[in-house]
């Protein structure tokens, strides 16, 4: 009986000893969050992902746990572009050592590709793409192109 109850209320993903838990990610954006912080199939981090989890705060949400890696402030803030309500928990020895929200940065460098094929940032020049974060969206520092929607599809 106890075992059955435990199974029903069981954890979706196991706790981590050390690392980062990104909570309250907009439902369906977990994989994009991983892309935005540079975690791809070729990196070595141990990751757990839960999608469409019930949330009192935002209805449904995604959760990402990254073992043995504490995200830096600038990495965390990139997440705000696609998951502005996300919260970041830095875990040390199974306990929340630090908890913070995400802040939208002034500039987004090297994450989003400019959709303008005529933009100099889409050539072999030794520069990274750079967007200024504005009220209306992301403005390319080089060609002034304004991305107002579907930022995710422009993530490199």
């Amino acid at each position: 009986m106890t075992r059955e109850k435990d199974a029903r209320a069981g954890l979706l993903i196991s706790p981590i000893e050390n690392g980062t838990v990104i909570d309250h990610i907009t439902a369906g954006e977990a994989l994009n969050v991983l892309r935005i912080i540079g975690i791809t199939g070729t990196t070595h981090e141990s990751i757990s992902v839960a999608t469409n989890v019930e949330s009192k705060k935002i209805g449904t949400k995604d959760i990402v746990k990254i073992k043995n890696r504490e995200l830096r402030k600038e990495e965390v803030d990139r997440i705000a572009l696609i998951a502005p309500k996300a919260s970041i928990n830095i875990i040390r020895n199974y306990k929340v050592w630090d908890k913070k929200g995400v802040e939208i940065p002034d500039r987004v460098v090297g994450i989003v590709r400019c959709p303008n094929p005529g933009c100099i940032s889409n050539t072999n020049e030794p520069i990274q793409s750079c967007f200024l974060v504005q009220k209306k969206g992301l403005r390319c520092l080089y060609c002034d192109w304004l991305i107002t929607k579907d930022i995710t599809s422009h993530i490199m």
Partner: protein
Amino acid sequence: MRHIISIRDLGKEEIGRILDEAAAIQSRSYDPSALKGKLLGLLFFEPSTRTRMSFAAAMARLGGNFLSMDSVEASSMAKGETLADTIRVVSGYVDAIVLRHPKEGAARLASEFATVPVINAGDGAGQHPSQTLLDLFTIRQSMPLEGIHVGLLGDLRYGRTAHSLTHALSLYNVTIHTITPKGLELPAGLATELRDAGTEVIEHGDIASCIRDLDVLYVTRIQRERFPDAASYFKVASSYRVTPELLTGTKNHFIVLHPLPRLDEIDPRVDELPCARYFEQSANGIAVRMAMLLRVMT
């Protein structure tokens, strides 16, 4: 270090200062040896007559010299050198760089790698601040900029001069009237941005319906290469032709501008009318570019 990359970077005050300086220069109130001993690098990766020659003339009139890259084919770009490297190298030779390049944002990139000031002389379909400044200067010779009605006729989709100009006009509470062939309208994003900034943008199907409301008609070239065949180009081009007949009944102070070169969009008979200001506009490029050079090189 001061660069002039985009009209967006220049506030209304800075634009005003450059135009005032240009007006002083035009009335011969300037030091003809202000840039003596200085060298200007003209890097043009696209064809240009007016912009290139007027920057060279402006530099010479201020007592300076210029170096000019003759062609892309004869440069290291043809060997695959990046623009960033070209700029770093040329920065070592000259005291300022004037750049025209086919890629949008090229001048911004150049300003990041240059150790001398950079002036954007046109980057793809992007910005062309020196043209915009001389457009504003020419309008200001005839009337105050505040609150006027400006008609933009022609290719507003790909024409960088029109894009740059609309940004500048939005600083002066100007009402913008657009008259374009189908498919060559002002980019939707730009029109929205202008409206959000409080600028009224009115689209017209034909020029006759608004010509008498205008203070300025700014004509741009309809680019032939945008049309599938010669017949469809001529059909559109002829319906956007400015003639003396079309201009009857316009306001007394009304003027016609064109960044040139023109093809068929302005009837040569218009040249004789007092409202035709496009050749003065072109000549104003010298004073305005002298003011720009003084701004970044002194």
